[in-house]
């Protein structure tokens, strides 16, 4: 396993160097770019094999490379949790690399393909290291490497102002998050007396309750920035849409999951037990992120921003699983905690798969129709049939509809929340069903949002010239999407065969083997602990759907076979023919929800009519509508103003005089010496 893992890293590294070398040649040949992408595929497949081996074969290993610098050595460890996230990463990396072979022929990344491939491979490399680092310092180095490489990937199209802003916001917020992580890790490492993850196991419990709580909060919010929990989410909808689509897929599919990995590592490895408020906080943050994420997604008509907001929603659903797992552990129910943890982890992988698929689909649409604005699309299902089909599969999966993978992990989340009512005392138990109701609302709103996203983009008449002449994506891009769509179906129908993968993880995290209690009925049924409390079988439901379709076909055969079937225009109320202007728009589609949740959105609209003679005969109508970006205006703008005011004050001590700076250094030194003597 170790050889496979290291070989994968080596392939990434070599491909990155080769990309850089290709960049400095005058012109990068197309075959070089292809070769670079395919070598990433090879690296990803090696990593995939290593992770599968480590998960199933239980071949956990440690390996380290001394760096010669004290406290820093490049230790890696492929334990079950790391292997699981590395599995998700390498699966998506392989699909994204295949997609890139076709995608890099056009667009902004096409201009510097060598450099792009270099950063893409560095990104894969650093993500692998984040998931497998066994040492806090090395982890943070890899973590920063991810930030830097993804920043360069995001700003590929740096000629555009919007891109630079999005990239900078991402960079700034990530830096802030890393700052929190540094302090949190230092507190835990101080308690453990070592920077090694293995020594830090259970170190959170050694801290005093206050310091332990502080470290928990620092790490939760530090990782929360990366995961995009509300209110730390604002970089996601800014950075994801401006990046090239394969990068957006990578960011949404796996980069934000590094935050989830960090939380899983901290919550279930570094802390053996956490106070109840911690679990409640995670559950609450998850519920709020899920609901607000989907509500903001509904208001978007930029296809990629819409998908970015859905990432926030799904991170929320994952955290609902984690939060209930923490609460169950606090109340002494490790079995239920394992159920909820499996729900969260399974949703992490599932979301990675379908979100990657949807972003790749959006990338094909963007290349085919030349716009991200859904109001200018329409009718693409005829011009881009394969992209439409795969996007539809992704849309069904992300809406949590059976029998695909999103349904399975949401089902487990529901079962965890249901069990919470009986398993916890006092009023905390009310939190579970309320969270369940909000999850139901979230899922239903997600379905509404994807009816909008798919319906407005792909169905009915094209709304612009570009959409009318859209072209289907090349074979390589549709192949990558087909692979992910198949994964959505396989993870749904074959969930019972996938669940045992979680056995070593729950064993490691909570000390219980639960997976044999999650599968029953000869591997057909998924159950939450016992078959009496409920069961579901996505495979049998799918077979049931197929079998029952005999009924409508039989009816049609018996009665309607001979009846004529003609095409004609849609009902146009007697007007001379329908045009695209008569179609419902994305803004109109979400209007009822905008009105219902007006307290949140504070919608504003402006209508100006130009007329010559009478206001009843307008020549042109100007319509403008927007919603208030609540978090930006009420949280970040005051924060930003505060930082600027503080900076203005600090300018007074920043005189620029070398004497003053020498004095500052001297005073600081004296203070530190005094502090040292006292300690």
């Amino acid at each position, binding site marked *: 396993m170790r050889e496979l893992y290291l070989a994968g890293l080596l392939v990434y590294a070599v491909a990155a160097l080769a990309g850089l070398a290709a960049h400095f040649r005058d012109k990068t040949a197309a075959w070089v770019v292809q070769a670079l992408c395919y070598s990433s595929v090879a690296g990803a497949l090696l990593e995939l094999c290593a992770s599968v081996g480590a998960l199933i074969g239980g071949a956990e290993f440690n390996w380290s490379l001394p760096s010669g610098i004290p406290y820093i050595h490049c230790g890696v460890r492929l334990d079950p949790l790391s292997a699981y996230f590395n599995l998700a990463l390498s699966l998506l990396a392989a699909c994204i690399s295949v997609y890139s072979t076709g995608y890099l022929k056009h667009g902004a990344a096409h201009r510097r393909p060598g450099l792009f491939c270099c950063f893409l491979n560095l990104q894969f490399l650093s993500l692998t290291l984040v998931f497998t680092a066994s040492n806090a310092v090395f982890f943070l180095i890899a973590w920063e490497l991810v930030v830097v490489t993804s920043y360069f990937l995001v700003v590929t199209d740096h000629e555009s102002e919007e891109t630079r802003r999005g990239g900078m916001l991402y960079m700034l917020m990530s830096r802030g998050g890393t700052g929190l992580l540094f302090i949190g890790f230092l507190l835990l490492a101080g308690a453990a007396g070592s920077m090694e993850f293995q020594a830090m196991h259970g170190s959170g419990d050694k801290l005093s309750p206050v310091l332990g709580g502080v470290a928990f909060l620092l790490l939760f919010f530090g990782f929360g920035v990366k995961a995009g929990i509300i209110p730390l989410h604002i970089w996601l909808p800014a950075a994801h849409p401006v990046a090239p689509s394969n990068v957006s897929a990578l960011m949404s599919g796996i980069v934000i999951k590094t935050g989830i990995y960090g939380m899983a590592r901290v919550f279930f490895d570094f802390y053996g037990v956490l106070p109840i408020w911690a679990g409640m906080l995670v559950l609450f943050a998850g519920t709020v992120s899920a609901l607000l994420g989907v509500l903001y997604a509904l208001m978007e008509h930029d296809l990629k921003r819409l998908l970015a907001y859905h990432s926030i929603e799904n991170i929320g659903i994952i955290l609902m699983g984690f939060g209930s797992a923490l609460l169950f552990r606090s109340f002494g129910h490790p079995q239920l905690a394992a159920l909820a943890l499996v729900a969260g982890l399974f949703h992490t992988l599932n979301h990675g798969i379908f979100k990657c698929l949807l972003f790749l689909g959006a990338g094909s649409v963007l290349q085919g129709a030349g716009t991200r604005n859904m109001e200018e699309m329409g009718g693409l299902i005829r011009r881009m049939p394969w992209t439409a089909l795969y996007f539809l599969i992704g849309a069904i999966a992300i809406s949590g509809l*059976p029998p695909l993978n999103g349904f399975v992990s949401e089902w487990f989340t529901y079962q965890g929340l249901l069990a919470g009512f009986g398993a916890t005392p006092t009023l905390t138990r009310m939190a579970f069903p309320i969270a369940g109701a909000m999850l139901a609302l979230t899922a239903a709103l997600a379905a509404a949002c994807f009816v909008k996203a798919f319906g407005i983009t792909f169905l009915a008449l094209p709304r612009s010239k570009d959409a009318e002449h859209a072209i289907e994506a090349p074979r390589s891009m549709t192949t990558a999407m087909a692979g992910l769509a198949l994964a959505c179906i396989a993870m749904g129908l074959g969930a019972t065969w996938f669940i045992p993968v979680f056995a070593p993880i729950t064993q490691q995290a909570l000390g219980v083997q639960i997976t044999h209690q999650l599968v029953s009925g000869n591997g057909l049924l998924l159950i939450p602990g016992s078959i009496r409390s409920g069961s579901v079988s996505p495979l049998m439901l799918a077979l049931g759907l197929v079998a029952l379709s005999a009924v409508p076909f039989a009816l049609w055969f018996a009665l309607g076979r001979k009846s004529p079937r003609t095409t004609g225009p849609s009902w146009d109320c007697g007007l001379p023919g329908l045009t695209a202007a008569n179609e419902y728009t994305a803004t109109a589609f979400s209007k009822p*929800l905008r009105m219902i949740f007006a307290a949140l959105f504070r919608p504003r609209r402006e209508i100006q009519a130009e007329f010559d003679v009478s206001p009843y005969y307008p020549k042109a109508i100007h319509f403008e509508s927007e919603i208030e970006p609540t978090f930006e205006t009420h949280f970040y703008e005051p924060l930003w103003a505060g930082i600027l005011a503080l900076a203005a004050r600090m300018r007074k001590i920043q005189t620029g005089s070398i004497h003053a700076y020498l004095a500052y250094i001297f005073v600081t030194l004296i203070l530190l010496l005094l502090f040292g003597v006292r300690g």
Partner: protein
Amino acid sequence: MIEKIASVFFHLALVLLLSPLVTGFNRMLKARVQTRRGPSIIQPYRDLHKLLRKGMVIPDTASWIFSATPFVLFVTTLLASMLIPTISANAPLSLYGGVLAVVYLLALGRFFLALGGLDAGSSFGGLGSSREMTISAIAEPALMLAVFTVAIGAGSTNLSIVAQSALGQSWRFLAPSQMLAFAALFIVLIAETGRIPVDNPATHLELTMIHEAMILEYSGPYLALIEWAAWIKQLLLMTILVNVFFPFGLSMTWSPGAVLFSFTLFIFKLLLLSIVVAIVEVSNAKMRLFRVPELLAIAFVLGVLALVSTFLFQG
């Protein structure tokens, strides 16, 4: 095994044949209360027979989604109905999915129906799709709270086990939590089946319609499937209400006497519920669209109260 297959076919026949009758009965009742004569109770069967044999017109803007929608809708609704106990306390396929699967199978059908509405390319379809998805979304929290109350009471999401556990304590429906959950689910039933005061199934005026706007472009056999699916969904939700809260007479065996007895009782319970629905329909006016969330908020509050009283009275 034979018994299992027989029960599947029996259940299938029951759902397919009974659903138009319930709709016919409901229409007849409404007509009588409004002192109209109204159509015959078997008119829905005649409609189905007529529509299935008619030719159909497909909008020229439509894609394969438009044609797939009636089948997906019909099959998902039918499969959802197989997870619910009707006259036997053992639904044929309830092991393969509990109440959550029922909710999400219906959502899958609705997802396609809304896409079908958009595919026609006129404003009506989009209007209907938008409203349908909105109302179903805001009905969802109340639905899920009621489901949670019932599932927590029975300790299971498997509807057969829920019904059997309710059968064990026949007077449980008098518990405040069950009554509140029933009230919440009743409001959801009204909203989900598109009844007055939420939607008017008898209207074709663009300002008031939701479901009918979405299916405006469907004709012939496709329309028949969609209508039939809507009736099955209505029967299915009514069955959940009567059998989960008032499980009297659900048979545990397949002896002819027991089946006949429970069949009679099942019809009787459905009739009673139909009467209640009809009375609600004729004694209310249709609400403005933006008043509907208030009604569903009431359902949500009822659901929360149901849970709180579970907490208070069952410890």
